[in-house]
């Protein structure tokens, strides 16, 4: 899936951990090796927070063993059994963490506002509008402006912001591409928004991170950032595929992963593309998922 090794960045979880990642080689995708502007900002923020927290954590990690040793029983150190208060220490103990939290809170406010998943990314390029529908256990990506759709393949031009509208045709799901950054829930009967982007062409692992049953661990998709020309070509190719008709929609609703769907639709590969979309399909899926059921006595009456 990932075409190059990117193991250099995982982080402070000890040299051994890092070494293991290096040993295991390729396939590491994380916001710590960001492939887009959102993840890049998140990595920066992550290290800022980690650095600040080190100010709080390191004294405890070093001083606790020292205290245990220095003031061990019969160790001959000073002993003040009745000492239990010091104004200076009190101010430092409440003031220190308060100061750190104040700085962290400022960073939090800035980053939360800047990385609001609902806010469009700052860019000169036009964004690409995509609608993602979570099924059990695959993702349907609709390109309403291009009239095409794909399953478990999110193709988009690198350098152009992605504007993703999300819903679920089933239970709650969470749309997440670790190398690109933020995740947001997709929920039945309503839509949520997510803005992402990739700096350069590449293939990234995407997933649903919200447990939704037996096929959950198989619900992966590929987010493929292409250069503009390649994307044009891909879209034109997709447009030649057969349309997303009622039969295909019914097949999508069956529980199963993408390969099951390909099998049901008698498609050759896992690359399931559709060349025509019904009008307002996304809104229809939302309405269908939330439709009012028949009241029990109506059902009994056979309505």
């Amino acid at each position, binding site marked *: 899936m990932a075409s190059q090794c990117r193991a250099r960045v995982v982080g402070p979880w000890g040299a051994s951990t890092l070494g293991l990642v290096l040993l295991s080689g390729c396939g590491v995708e994380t916001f710590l090796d960001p492939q887009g502007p959102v993840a890049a900002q998140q990595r920066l923020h992550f290290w800022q927070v980690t650095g600040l927290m080190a100010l709080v954590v390191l004294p405890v990690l070093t001083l606790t063993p020292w205290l245990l040793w220095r003031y061990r029983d019969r160790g001959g150190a000073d002993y003040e059994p009745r000492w239990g208060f010091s104004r200076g220490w009190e101010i430092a103990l409440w003031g220190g963490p308060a100061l750190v939290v104040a700085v962290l809170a400022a960073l939090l406010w800035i980053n939360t506002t800047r990385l609001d998943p609902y806010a469009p990314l700052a860019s000169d390029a036009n964004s690409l509008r995509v609608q993602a529908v979570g099924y059990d256990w695959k993702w349907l990506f609709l390109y309403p402006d291009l009239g095409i759709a794909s399953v478990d393949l999110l193709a988009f031009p690198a350098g152009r912001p992605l504007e993703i509208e999300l819903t679920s045709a089933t239970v709650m799901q969470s749309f997440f591409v670790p190398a690109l950054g933020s995740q947001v829930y997709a929920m039945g009967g309503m839509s949520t928004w997510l803005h992402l982007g990739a700096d350069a062409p590449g293939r990234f692992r995407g997933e649903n991170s919200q447990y939704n049953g037996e096929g959950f661990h198989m619900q992966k998709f590929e987010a493929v950032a292409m250069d503009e020309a390649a994307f044009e070509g891909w879209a034109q190719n997709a447009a030649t595929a057969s349309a997303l008709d009622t039969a295909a929609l019914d097949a999508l609703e069956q529980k199963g992963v993408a390969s099951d769907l390909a099998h049901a639709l008698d498609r050759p590969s896992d690359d399931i593309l559709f060349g025509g979309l019904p009008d307002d399909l996304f809104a229809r899926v939302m309405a269908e998922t*939330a439709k*009012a059921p028949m*009241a029990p006595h109506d059902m009994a009456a056979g309505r």
Partner: protein
Amino acid sequence: MNTETGRHPGLNLGSGHAEAHGEAEALVFGFWVFMMSDLVTFGLLLATYVTMLDNLAGGPGPKDLFELKPVFIETLVLLTSSLTYGMAILSLKHDPGRRLRPVLAWLGLTLMLGLAFVAMEAKDLHALQAKGGAPQRSGFLSAFWALVPLHALHVAAAALWLVAIAAQIWRFGLDTPVKTALLRLGVLWHFLDVVWIAIVSVVFLGGLA
């Protein structure tokens, strides 16, 4: 401990029973804490109702379903039952110890009013269902049916408790456990008034506004 200052204000447990007063105090306080927990439940149900007001799913809304007249009568009945309960507690404190105890009469009246409230509620809910307002119809109606009948269920449970206490009076007379039980039931009874007022304001008046 000074027996006079340690006495429970609402009870006549006798001046020589400081410990009994202390225990009554803890019992009533404990029950009050329990009611606070229950209050959270009703508060959340009210909040749920408010958030669900628009989740009609094409079904009937407050204006199609609610009528204020029965609600008004129910309110009067329930508030009056609180008054009669208060009278019962007063006559408990000044119980003359005669055979025909006024406290029992007040409790009987309270029970009647409580049961009348529950019966009227049941009738309303039945009518609501007949108008297409079954709880399965919409999120809004689910929220309504979780809140209002739960209150009625509380009143019914309080009535059952009242009967149980009456049976204890019949069996043991007005002994200390009965007195503290009556005090606790009082907390519940008045609490259910407060909750009902909130329900009337939010569910019925708020829903129709």
